[in-house]
């Protein structure tokens, strides 16, 4: 027998380490006493303390949470209903509609930012939270739509049919059977949407007004004007939040997979 090469494992390991190394450095320097981020002078949480005292950070965090919460919820409702409707109908325009609905996934972010900016100013919408929510909902819908569609495709139709045979009304079937079965897909899609929204820079820069700052926009402006170690602390916290969300989403997704019969 041929001996199994160790090369694949080493390759995966090295690339993964390189992928995480910059993030790790940011984390390390976030607890560095020194103001200069290439010298290590000792452990300190002072940058975190300064971060929490910063009013701008508090406001931006609040904005980011509202934005992520509202747009992932709106996308969840719109995307879930759309996925159910798409799977059930067989009309001709379906393919084209599906293509258009998932277009934000294929469109470079800068173009989405550009068209939203131009379109919102055409409509005369005031730039701020409303425009941010509309834009974020638009790019979150495809993630929910795909998740729920995949779950519906793998769902056992006989449960719904059995409920119908036993006399349950259409609304009852939907709320008692269909919705619980696709719920893991909706929740994990929502979490991922929240993560996308929470981390988005490019689209937000274009559609936010002068008055509304989100955390990523705050980081971007600070990086352009000069780095303070506070940014390290902020990036670390945001990374940990994203990590938590992605892990949670994967766990919920897997939970649903085990339950639903293939």
């Amino acid at each position, binding site marked *: 027998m041929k001996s199994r090469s160790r090369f694949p494992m080493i390759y995966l390991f090295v690339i993964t380490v390189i992928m995480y190394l910059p993030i790790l450095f940011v984390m390390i320097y976030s607890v560095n006493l020194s103001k200069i981020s*290439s010298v290590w002078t000792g452990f300190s949480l002072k940058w975190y303390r300064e971060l929490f005292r910063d009013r701008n950070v508090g406001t931006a965090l609040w904005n980011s949470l509202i934005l992520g919460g509202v747009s992932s919820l709106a996308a969840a409702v719109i995307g879930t*209903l759309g996925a159910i*409707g798409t799977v*059930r109908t067989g009309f001709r325009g379906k393919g084209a509609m599906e293509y258009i609905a998932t277009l934000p996934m294929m469109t470079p972010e800068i173009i989405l930012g550009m068209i939203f900016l*131009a379109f919102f100013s055409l409509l005369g919408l005031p730039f701020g939270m409303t425009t941010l929510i509309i834009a974020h909902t638009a790019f979150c819908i495809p993630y929910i739509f795909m998740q729920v569609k995949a779950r519906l495709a793998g769902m056992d139709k006989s449960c719904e049919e059995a409920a119908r045979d036993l006399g349950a009304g259409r609304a009852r079937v939907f709320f008692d059977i269909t919705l619980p079965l696709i719920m893991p897909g909706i929740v994990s899609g929502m979490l991922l949407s929240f993560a996308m929204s929470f981390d988005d820079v490019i689209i937000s820069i274009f559609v936010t007004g002068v008055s509304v700052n989100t955390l990523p926009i705050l980081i971007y402006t600070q990086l352009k004007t000069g780095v303070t170690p506070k940014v390290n602390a902020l990036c670390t916290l945001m990374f940990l939040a994203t990590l938590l969300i992605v892990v949670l989403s994967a766990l919920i997704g897997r939970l649903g997979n085990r339950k639903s019969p293939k």
Partner: protein
Amino acid sequence: MQRERRGENAAFLAPMYIFTVIFLIGPFVYMLVLSFLTRAETWGVVNSFTLRNYERILEPLYFNTFVESVKLAVLVTALVALFGYPFGYFMAKLPPKRRGLMLMLVMIPFYTSSLMRLYGWIIVLRANGLLDKLLMALHITSEPLKILYTYPAVAVGMVYALLPFMMLSVYSSVEKMDWALVEAARDMGASPAGAFLTVTLPLTMPGLMTGVILTFVPSMGLFFVADILGGNKIVLVGSLIQEQLMKVHDQPFAAALSVIMMLMMTVMIWLYRRVTGSGEMEGML
């Protein structure tokens, strides 16, 4: 009964259709219209038809930016494919338990803002930063390389930002591949390399191509990479669009630039459909 069901489906579809038509098709159509309109003297747009915006792209200043941006995109896409393809391939061949963990490790950077991930590179690449210190400590170089704010720094940053897309799409392609076909090729006397080139590579082409599509044109738009790692020395099409929108307030010209980028994207998706014969992109979740 039949009618009732149709009405119900329409009710399910209505929110997505209405939202998509107003806030997606609307903006895209307006981009196209806008690119043929004239910029107003001070602020806004005048409704008179012109081809001027597209002609301007051919002016040397802008055309050079386009060419340089495409060159960088080619380099970045090649590097992303070179590093990302083996990663996705090896990842798909891991035993299931480790595969899940690995997938998670790729998903986390995928969902983390590339801005934050790139910020770490500033620490690594800046003059007298970690890389310079390491290289000098190992006596590979004798003085700081000062890579930050150079072309290579921007290229590294882009490869780093876009790599997860390639890894995930190749992974999803390799994962559902039928390995019996590779074994058959091997049994019939193909060398490992021969079997890879004639069986594995063509079968995983959809994944590789999806990765290329998600890398090539988007790399031309990553203005903030050029901004924070290139220090305004490298100008991308994306930087141009951003500048036209936010500083010069020339929406029609920005729209024309976007239309060209969108056209490139459409051509690539069209090619993908021709080659693979399928509409679904690989690993889009």
